[in-house]
């Protein structure tokens, strides 16, 4: 079976979630081909072999330096056909999921996104999807020959299983009109750990009282190599940028460790964090609902606990 993996890159580097997609494809078994579009470092591409790709195709055409959904979908669909790939694996992201949708419609594939586990092929081809914003799972069978699978973070473990492979330059012809949605500019936080990909998240709520107190959160995050997050009212009030808003209507995270400070734990907030491995809650109200969803809790004033916690973490390093 031939499996194609679309690998996403940012600033010339393959994204961590895409390595999970390669690992996922490798675990399914078969010949795994990785496809990268635009400007990506060649060593990065060769190293995909380490995680399970048996070949790597690279479309270096600078037209693809920006992720235009429709053009990317066409390029991937063409490659799928070219490589006689039955399965496409994509990591769910702001670019990956919309692309998966178009490719599936184009090639006539069964489509499942938000997939959290490897397929069970003992009878048919079944995958488990996260639904109701993390409150439940659905097991679904993908019945068509062609399948497009969007995987959620942590659906597969990245392991070294091979050695670097050579990269094959590749060309696809995509209609000009597919580039109609023209990206004019972008703004991106630089030098920070990105929230959706972070292993540790330090998140603050309305209990932090104001944007001027976020230095404490940022310092703690820096020490931990963590990303910073926040509750919805915090981003609504403009204390923090919107892309840090965690929850039902914001970013869904699945880190190893989520530290929530001054967040009450409304069900809509929990919906974005319930896939975290370990949750620590710091809140001055012992009855805050978040404690029910936590692994560890401290009842106390954030302004008192945070500096102490920061010292203790630095001491333990």
């Amino acid at each position, binding site marked *: 079976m031939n499996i194609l993996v679309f690998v996403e890159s940012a600033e010339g580097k393959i994204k961590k979630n895409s390595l999970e997609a390669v690992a996922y494809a490798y675990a399914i078994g078969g010949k795994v081909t990785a496809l990268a579009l635009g400007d990506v470092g060649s060593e990065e591409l060769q190293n995909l072999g380490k995680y399970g790709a048996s070949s790597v195709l690279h479309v270096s055409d600078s037209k693809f330096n920006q992720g235009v*959904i*429709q053009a990317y979908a066409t390029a991937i669909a063409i490659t799928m056909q070219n490589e006689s790939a039955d399965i496409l694996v994509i990591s*769910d992201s*702001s670019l990956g*999921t*919309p692309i998966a*949708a*178009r490719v599936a*419609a184009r090639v006539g594939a069964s*489509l499942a*996104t*938000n997939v959290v586990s490897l397929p069970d092929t003992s009878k048919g081809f079944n995958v488990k999807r*996260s*639904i*109701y914003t993390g*409150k*439940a*799972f*659905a*097991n*679904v*069978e*993908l*019945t068509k020959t062609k399948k497009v699978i969007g995987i959620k973070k942590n659906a597969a473990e990245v392991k070294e299983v091979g050695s670097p492979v050579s990269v094959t330059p590749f060309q696809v012809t995509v209609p000009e009109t597919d580039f*109609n*949605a*023209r*990206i*004019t*500019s*972008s*703004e*991106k*936080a630089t030098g920070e750990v*990105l929230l959706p*990909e972070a292993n540790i998240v330090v998140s603050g709520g309305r209990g932090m009282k104001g944007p001027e107190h976020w230095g404490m959160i940022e310092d703690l995050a820096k020490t931990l190599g963590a990303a910073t997050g926040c509750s919805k009212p915090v981003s*609504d009030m403009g204390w923090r940028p919107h*892309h840090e808003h965690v929850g039902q*209507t914001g970013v869904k995270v699945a880190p190893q*460790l989520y530290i929530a400070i001054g967040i009450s734990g409304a*069900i*809509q907030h929990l*919906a974005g964090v*319930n896939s975290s*491995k370990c949750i*620590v*809650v710091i809140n001055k109200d012992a009855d805050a609902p978040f*404690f*029910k*969803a*936590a*692994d*560890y*809790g*401290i009842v*106390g004033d954030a302004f*008192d606990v945070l500096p102490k916690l920061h*010292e*203790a*973490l630095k001491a333990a390093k």
Partner: protein
Amino acid sequence: MKILVCISHVPDTTSKINFTDNNSRFDPQGVQFIIGPYDDYALARAVELKESSGAAITVLNVGLVDTEPTIRKALAIGADEAVRVNAEPTDSFFVATQIAEYARAKSFDLILMGRESIDYNGGVVHGIVGELLGIPSVSPVMKLDIEGNTAKLAREIEGGKEYLELPLPFVAGCQEPIAEWKIPNMRGIMSARTKPLNVIEPVAVDSGIKPQQFELPPPKGTVKMIAPENVAELVSLLKNEAKVL
């Protein structure tokens, strides 16, 4: 301008999720249904565009008759007419095909919907509709302005946003802060009663998806409380017990 807004009818965000019939069906008992929160943003933006530059808004839902109160609410918020495709929305491909079939001959300038539904969480209906109609699709859109025949959008990306320009028509999957949710006023609720709500039958679709079974996540263990003066203990537990540091 003609705008199609597609809405899902989903459990209120505070709902407890349960399944019945041997975990093969969602249990609606005690559950309040709402317009999907992301779809609600799309609708709110459509109404703003109508107020600022004039537009005719059609709202579409794929659902059985029990979704009509949700559709009426969208009419009360400001849509002009509604269409219900009379079928259970079993999967993204099925729903997207119904939307594309309806929209194909109607030449909408804009097709708006939420970035994802909060029940199925597929995040793909906008893309499939775009592909089936052969027009661009953009998601997740957090800003949308129309200038003549061109739209200016902001799309959220990991750690930031990107700005786009594209010609109409296209499909957008919306999210906040594209607009503020609108609460229907009395006049809206009254007029919604008499606005047209047409029911059409679905087209047949082979989605290639067979739902097998639902399951709930394992229950969470009990929380371990630590005294605020013992933060060092917390650090040690995170290191040695949870092994997350």
